[in-house]
């Protein structure tokens, strides 16, 4: 997991500097995220997550837990953002066994193998980026962003987003989509009860190879237990 090395000094600073709290009467950050492939061609409509860091905020205790279903040998959705302290439910909707595991340094877990109709829950108490896989089906991959506050949003199919209740001040806004070569970011100055416009552009790369839960390559073709 050497690629998880700190390289964003500016972001690191943003995590320790001004502490504020999400404020429903704060400002809004709106805009559009466009996603292009590494060769410059436009990517089809793809979910992206836009988030702002620099201040902590507790999870909403009334929030409905997010779900990542296992359907058709895919995680659906394959990109989810939650606030630190929230749970994610993993239901298996396929007529065969799935496993859910992560070896990400931010959050290691193994939910075992479970059948159709069963679901497992994992909690995410600390911020981080977590790659999730199935030990049975190597083609299944998802990414979970565990964020330090509730000021994050999923883009619409057209790429539009709105971050509500951002505290007044200068913050760094990020956008990320799965397989992005890197997240993009920009500084914004948020004013109370005012909109701040920010458009972002992401470049998408190839799906990186991953190992199974034992740290080994998947067998050719991958085992499929029905």
């Amino acid at each position, binding site marked *: 997991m050497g690629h998880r090395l700190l390289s964003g000094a500016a972001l690191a600073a943003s995590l320790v500097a001004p502490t504020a709290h999400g404020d429903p009467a704060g400002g809004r950050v709106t805009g559009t995220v466009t996603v292009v492939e590494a060769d410059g061609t436009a990517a089809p409509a793809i979910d992206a997550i836009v988030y702002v860091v620099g201040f902590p905020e507790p999870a909403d205790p009334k929030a409905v837990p997010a779900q990542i279903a296992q359907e058709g040998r895919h995680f659906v959705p394959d990109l989810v953002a939650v606030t630190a302290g929230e749970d994610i439910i993993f239901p298996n909707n396929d007529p065969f066994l799935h496993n859910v595991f992560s070896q990400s340094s931010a959050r290691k877990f193994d939910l*075992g193998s479970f059948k159709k109709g069963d679901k497992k829950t994992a909690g995410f108490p600390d911020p981080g980026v977590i790659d999730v896989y199935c030990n049975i089906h190597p083609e299944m991959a998802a990414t979970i962003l565990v964020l330090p506050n509730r000021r994050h949003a999923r883009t619409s199919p057209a790429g539009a987003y709105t971050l509500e209740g951002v505290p007044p001040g200068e913050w760094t806004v990020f956008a990320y989509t799965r397989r992005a070569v*890197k*997240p993009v970011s920009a500084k914004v100055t948020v004013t109370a009860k005012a909109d701040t416009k920010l458009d972002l552009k992401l470049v998408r790369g190839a799906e990186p190879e991953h190992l199974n839960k034992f740290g080994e390559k998947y067998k050719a073709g991958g085992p499929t237990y029905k």
Partner: protein
Amino acid sequence: MFGAMVRVSGLVAVVAVGVAGAPGTAHAGRTDFGWLFGTETMPERSVELQTWTYEENGRPGVRDETSLWWGPVIGITDQLELSLPIEATWRAGSTAEPTATPATFALTDYGVDLRYRLVRADPVTAGPVVPLLRVAVKRDVDTRSAVVTEADLIIGYQRGRLHALLDAGVTGEFASGEHDVFARPGAGVSVQAIGDLRLGAEVFSELQVSGGTYRWVAVGPDLAWTHGRFWLSAAFGIGIYHMETAPRITWGIAF
């Protein structure tokens, strides 16, 4: 892979806040100790093959022994695991006349071993204190009317790199009209040293409380190591009461 290497530049700082002291994933029914049972259980529908090898050397009036415990361990649920062990023991011979006896190696027991973790399997959401109950029922191969039962209450405490553990075990051997009962108290600490290597120390004892006066106590260093689907733990018990040495190695390989 390049994409993965650079894509996290905006997220890694967030990650860095969260990972300090994060415990590892629950990884099969392993233990961080040699003689003490652990509090981890196998993930649901996972299977592991476990082998324990342990010695009891230098007990007064008792032949030295090397015992083998071997069996599959199956995750029934994330918190309940079942194993089906078979056990064999080698006993040293004696040349002392007039009771000279040859060394023996024989199947001793087989049975069922259940371990139930009383809190969630996920170490992050389970909390620092993890209790586990273990119950085993085994048939004594040599004494056909005998049944061996074992029970343990294990309480682990995990904080950062430190894992402390108490194991209060009891063994009962019941035959027609007779019974022997042994307490098996033990305790240990294990510290994550480097990566998946842990080092620690433990004390373990076997104290007959009914049917005789068989007792011994040993204390010594231990280690545990995990590598992919394989793990092992080992302890070298140095006898402090009615025992010279009590080394033990346990390993498991998951499938």
